[in-house]
């Protein structure tokens, strides 16, 4: 472990320069009303953060209930319909309410203008509207649970979803509204990155997190409308019987799957691209080194965004689409693996000869390398046509996407949250508890989901309420792991909340990063910068030296560093 504790925020001197006592964005306007009507991207980001964390808690409780039910091969605590509703809601809440807006809308909103040295995003009102659309969608989704829970799975496949006797219409409308929220965020980010970059920051001087957000925003803007029309068609199908997806009326239920995955596969990259951006920041900062292969990482983000539109058919290898189509989609699917591999190798190369600091955010970045490595490599199994036929719709898939979405996105989200927490709140959290929790989540996650790879390959289908006794040991181990993970999250919640009141004041730059958000006070003033810093190489960490007196990193004159 790290010997130089002061470098990760422990025991910072009381003299640390901190804006908590001064005018900052948190106390700039007073009262709840000033929050609900704010146009400040930082406040909107914080509101998003609180909201999506609440969704994460809800989805997590659903997940624990599902795992608990699966402790025995027959009924454990609930009946089949309740179980089916719970896994549907777990998926829908986690995907549409938590993970899609997770990094872009919460962390991205807070960080993006700061990284650009800008005062705000291009359209602050649209940004607030995006938040309120999210709230409206979330309220509707929760209402649909109260009115009569949905049990279709988060994919809403027809014709089950058009025939199911439940509040499918309401939850699909909720997702439709959430789509607007996502589009508004993406549109705002694209325009902000294009038009509000400061003089001196060319495209290849942008922090890689912005490249990740840019790629994400492109997908958000171009894919989400297709989900919108799909859900609209589903709604009119249910309400009016239009028949476009209804086989009894000459329609085609598999067309729904094509439409749905045309959005939902790129959506996977909406989730993972910003996560990769976060990891690029973390690996460079905590290796105290310039990122390796900047251009390859930046281009690979855009390559992923582009190819992600062409691979949706790999969700339908067993649906009866023609062999030719399966072949094309399989081929394109393998292509999308390459940019991800490039990033992983570049991150590892960044650590070479660095001075690696194992602070909490870096532990999450290392977790990410490990878990996303497994998630990505198991993707090869699923892209290979013959093997996919066997593994499709089994627990192998469940494990694979949890390794990518949770092991990738959520872990990177946690890394980013810990990394920017001092900037957002002006407080340091407990480094020791941060590391313990990171370890708990890592171990718990692997116990939960690695077992699922094995039972899936052994043939255990997903979305099963009852299962054959031969899978019971796997299920019980998996459930045990999920409890361990839950403990990890409780620990995180406790020390982060504690830090809000008791945390040591955070310096402007506790980690020694060179991106612009660290060149304003923690927390930043409402207008972001008292003096806009000059745009330089965002990974030139050389001038940033630990200053014991300031309690953080400060920029030294270049001459002093030689």
């Amino acid at each position: 472990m790290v010997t130089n504790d002061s470098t990760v925020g422990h025991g910072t001197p009381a003299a640390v320069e901190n804006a908590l006592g001064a005018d900052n964005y948190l106390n700039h306007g007073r009262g709840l009303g000033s929050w609900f009507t704010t146009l400040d991207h930082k406040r909107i980001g914080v509101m998003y953060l609180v909201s999506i964390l609440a969704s994460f808690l809800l989805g997590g409780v659903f997940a624990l209930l599902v795992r608990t039910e699966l402790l025995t091969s027959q009924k454990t605590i609930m009946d089949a319909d309740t179980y089916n509703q719970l896994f549907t809601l777990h998926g829908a809440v986690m995907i549409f309410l938590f993970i899609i807006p997770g990094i872009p809308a919460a962390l991205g909103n807070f960080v993006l203008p700061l990284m650009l040295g800008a005062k705000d995003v291009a359209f602050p009102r649209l940004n607030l509207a995006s938040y309120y659309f999210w709230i409206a969608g979330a309220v509707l989704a929760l209402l649909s649970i109260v009115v009569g829970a949905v049990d279709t799975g988060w994919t809403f496949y027809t014709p089950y979803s058009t025939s199911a006797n439940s509040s499918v219409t309401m939850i699909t409308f909720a997702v439709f509204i959430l789509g607007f929220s996502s589009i508004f965020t993406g549109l705002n980010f694209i325009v902000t990155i294009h038009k509000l970059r400061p003089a001196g920051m060319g495209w290849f001087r942008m922090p890689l997190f912005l490249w990740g957000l840019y790629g994400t925003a492109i997908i958000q803007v171009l894919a989400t409308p297709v989900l919108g029309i799909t859900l609209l068609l589903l709604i009119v199908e249910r309400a009016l019987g239009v028949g476009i997806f209804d086989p009894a009326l000459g329609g085609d239920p598999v067309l729904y799957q094509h439409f749905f995955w045309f959005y939902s596969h790129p959506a996977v990259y909406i989730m993972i691209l910003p996560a990769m951006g976060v990891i690029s920041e973390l690996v460079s900062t905590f290796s105290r080194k310039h990122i390796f292969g900047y251009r390859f990482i930046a281009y690979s983000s855009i390559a992923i965004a582009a190819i992600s539109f062409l691979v949706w058919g790999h969700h339908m290898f067993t649906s009866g689409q023609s062999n030719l189509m399966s072949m094309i989609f399989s081929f394109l699917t393998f292509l999308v693996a390459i940019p991800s591999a490039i990033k992983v190798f570049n991150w590892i190369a960044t650590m070479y000869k660095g001075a690696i600091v194992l602070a909490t955010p870096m532990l999450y970045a290392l977790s990410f390398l490990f878990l996303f490595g497994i998630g990505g490599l198991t993707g090869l199994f699923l892209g290979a046509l013959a093997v996919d036929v066997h593994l499709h719709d089994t627990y192998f898939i469940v494990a694979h996407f949890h390794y990518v979405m949770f092991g990738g996105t959520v872990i990177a989200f946690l890394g980013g949250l810990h990394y920017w927490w001092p900037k957002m709140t002006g407080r340091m959290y407990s480094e020791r508890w941060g590391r313990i929790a990171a370890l708990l989540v890592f171990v718990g996650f692997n116990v939960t989901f690695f077992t699922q790879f094995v039972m899936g390959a052994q043939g255990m289908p997903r979305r099963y309420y009852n299962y054959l006794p031969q899978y019971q040991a796997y299920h019980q181990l998996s459930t045990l792991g999920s409890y361990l993970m839950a403990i990890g999250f409780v620990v995180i919640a406790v020390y982060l909340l504690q830090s809000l009141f008791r945390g040591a004041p955070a310096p402007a730059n506790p980690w020694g990063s060179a991106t612009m958000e660290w060149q304003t006070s923690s927390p930043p003033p409402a207008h972001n910068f008292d003096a806009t810093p000059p745009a330089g190489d965002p990974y030139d960490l050389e001038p940033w030296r630990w200053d014991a007196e300031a309690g953080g990193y400060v920029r030294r004159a270049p001459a002093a560093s030689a």
Partner: protein
Amino acid sequence: MSVIERVVGLTGRLLGTQSDGSFWMPVQASTGAPGVDRLFHFLFWLSLAFFALIVGLTVLFIVRYRRRAGRDEPEASPSHNTALELTWTIVPLLLVFVIFAWGFKVFLDLNTPPANSFEVLVTGQKWKWLFTYPNGHVDENLHVPIDRPIRLVMTSEDVIHSFFVPDFRIKRDVVPGRYAKAWFQATRTGEFQVYCAEYCGTSHSDMLAKVIVYEPGGFERWMAEAADFLTKLPPAEAGARLFTSRGCAQCHSMSGVGGIGPTLKGVFGHPVQLAAGANVVADEDYIRESILEPQAKVVAGFQPVMPTYKGRLKDAEITALIEYLKKSSE
């Protein structure tokens, strides 16, 4: 078992060379399974090699380049190296081409049935598989001879299901309104599990069946006996068989417990309350009508969700079912 045998056994399981199932894959019971497993295990070892490389380098770098007392600063090293980066772009690219081609080839083999296949019609409905043989016999399990290609022509009565036999490595979605096709050739006798792999509602996880593979001659014996149970058995007993094999029991219990549909325990000859308000006595005509036109007189408290059996049950079969209900209500 000696240590050496254990080691050999474990290695075989990890390598996937054993046909009675490995650590990863279940028993290989069809001609298609070994090909899938070879690719799976190739991918497994390839992935493991890459994973070991990633984790190994990460751990090595952390140990060597950790910041510690006396090593406060990073060492100078280049921030990009185009040749190196192109290497780790192109090598994985070539490897995935190999995987793609291999996966597609095996996939084509899995999807191309031989010309002389024996055909069985598979019908999926909530939540039951039905297997119709060329002679018209309908069964709730799939009985097949060993070493003979079997071609399945599958359709669904209601929503999308998916026919999945892990031991054969086959899976195919069964979509209403069209025919899905799959084939296999069993290489082992015994019973193999059939699952529904596409979520289809409340009892999705109970939509199970067995593939029963017979040794040469056994299948023909079974077929001869099974085909004419309607004429050989007393009608009530034949009806009892139909009641489970044709899916009635999925929704209607005979124990008095309510399900998707009303229980049929003791229903025959007694009045039932209809959703429309009227009362009607459950006699032969009512039961026949309820089988053929289920929406005509729906029992109070139940959804009108039963599919029609018009054209799917012969008159003799309906009569047998009525006899069964009559007998069990006595």
